């Protein structure tokens, strides 16, 4: 009974925290345009913001709620189960729905990619063996598909339409998405559903495209080739919608991307600040120290909050 009660309370806290943080992120986030940071960093910040509710609620539940319940909850208390059980069921439903979304996205992607890969051959223009081209009409011009085994699919029309340099830089753009594991990130978004997150996801998607452009381009010639490829491929109309676990070459904000590429110069690229992962380390260490020093009072406070929840 004690264990069941503990599970119900933990799940309740998880779902409440998740909903609260998600609502906060959905309403409080703002586009990061005014910040003078590299697009890779913008994409990373937006991804962190999008996944913050899930990660924070899991961490708080396991680091505070579960230990506070185990250490401070008297084992003999009975009753007051209705609210935690109801919220626990909600949490289980949320987890089940998230899993369903992930499985559906993966299944649809796999099904579509299998169809697109029918009769596909390795692309000679690319040195990377993961790149193939497909001939099925109505497929996207260039797209990165899959999570575990990502592949770049290129249509025959694209090969015919683009010059060697344009094709090379377009492939490089997609390979940058592969390096950043953008399809996995999209799948993670499926795992943290919450209404009102579409704009944040769209901003991330746009930043990820710009980041892949920036990473692929190393000189003005590359930038112009990529812009030319973008414009040419935008004229090709895909008949089918792209699956969730894919990053298309031609996405939204075409004008913005082309304008950025045409105005590309080495100086502006180096001026933009890139926020590295290790920037977070001092904050993480400070937070860990703070929590370890004040762990007992924090546990007591957490227990009081959960007590209020049980009543």
């Amino acid at each position, binding site marked *: 009974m004690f264990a069941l009660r503990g599970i119900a309370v933990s799940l309740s806290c998880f779902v409440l925290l998740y909903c609260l943080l998600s609502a906060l992120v959905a309403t409080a986030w703002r586009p990061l345009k005014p910040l003078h940071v590299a697009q890779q960093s913008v994409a990373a910040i937006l991804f962190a913001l999008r996944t913050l509710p899930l990660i924070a609620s899991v961490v708080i539940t396991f680091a505070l709620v579960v230990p506070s319940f185990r250490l401070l909850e008297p084992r003999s208390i009975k009753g007051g189960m209705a609210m935690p059980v109801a919220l626990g069921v909600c949490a289980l439903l949320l987890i089940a729905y998230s899993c369903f979304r992930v499985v559906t996205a993966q299944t649809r992607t796999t099904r579509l990619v299998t169809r697109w890969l029918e009769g596909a051959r390795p692309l000679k223009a690319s040195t990377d063996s993961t790149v193939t081209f497909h001939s099925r009409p109505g497929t996207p011009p260039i797209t990165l598909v899959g999570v575990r085994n990502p592949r770049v699919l290129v249509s025959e029309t694209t090969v015919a339409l683009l010059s060697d340099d344009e094709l090379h830089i377009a492939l490089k753009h997609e390979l940058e998405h592969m390096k950043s594991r953008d399809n996995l990130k999209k799948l993670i978004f499926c795992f943290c559903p919450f209404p009102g997150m579409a704009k944040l996801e769209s901003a991330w998607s746009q930043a990820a495209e710009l980041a892949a452009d920036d990473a692929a381009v190393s000189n003005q010639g590359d930038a*112009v080739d990529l812009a*030319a490829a973008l*414009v040419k491929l*935008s*004229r090709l109309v895909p008949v089918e919608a792209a699956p969730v676990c894919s990053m298309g070459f031609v996405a939204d904000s*075409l004008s913005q991307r082309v304008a950025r590429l045409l105005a590309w110069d080495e100086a502006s690229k180096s001026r933009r600040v890139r926020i590295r992962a290790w920037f977070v380390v001092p904050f993480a260490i400070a937070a860990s120290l703070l929590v370890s020093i004040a762990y007992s009072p924090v546990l007591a406070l957490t227990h009081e909050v959960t007590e209020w929840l049980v009543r």
Partner: protein
Amino acid sequence: MMKASSIFGLRPRLGPFEQLVLEKLWAYGSATVRELLADGAIHQAYTTVSTTLDRLYKKGLLERVAEGKAFRYTPRHTPEELQRVTTLDSIRQLLESGVPSSLPLSHLVEAISIHDAQLLDELQLLVERKCCELRDQKKIREKS
């Protein structure tokens, strides 16, 4: 001039007679009820034409100025502008409907791509200009 009947998304909004009157107005530029009737292509009573013009005015498709006891009507949009407005409106309605199927979205992409042809032409021109610029710079560097 583009026929009103061919305008994407316009059919559900305008009746056949409204479309005919709007086409005539596009052809004239501006007209009063009497001028439209004098053309001979509209075989309806004065009040019918007047009511139709009033309805088009209330739908925001026409502008009017008083001319004696009557009104002179002018189309607010060119056929191309109206096409753009109605297309965007249709797309907005489709997006707001929250259709879960991927099929309408793919049609939406198709519609957007078709109607952005002008933008793509402009972007292509910019890219070509930049290409020429780079080529010229390269030549100058090689010479020097």
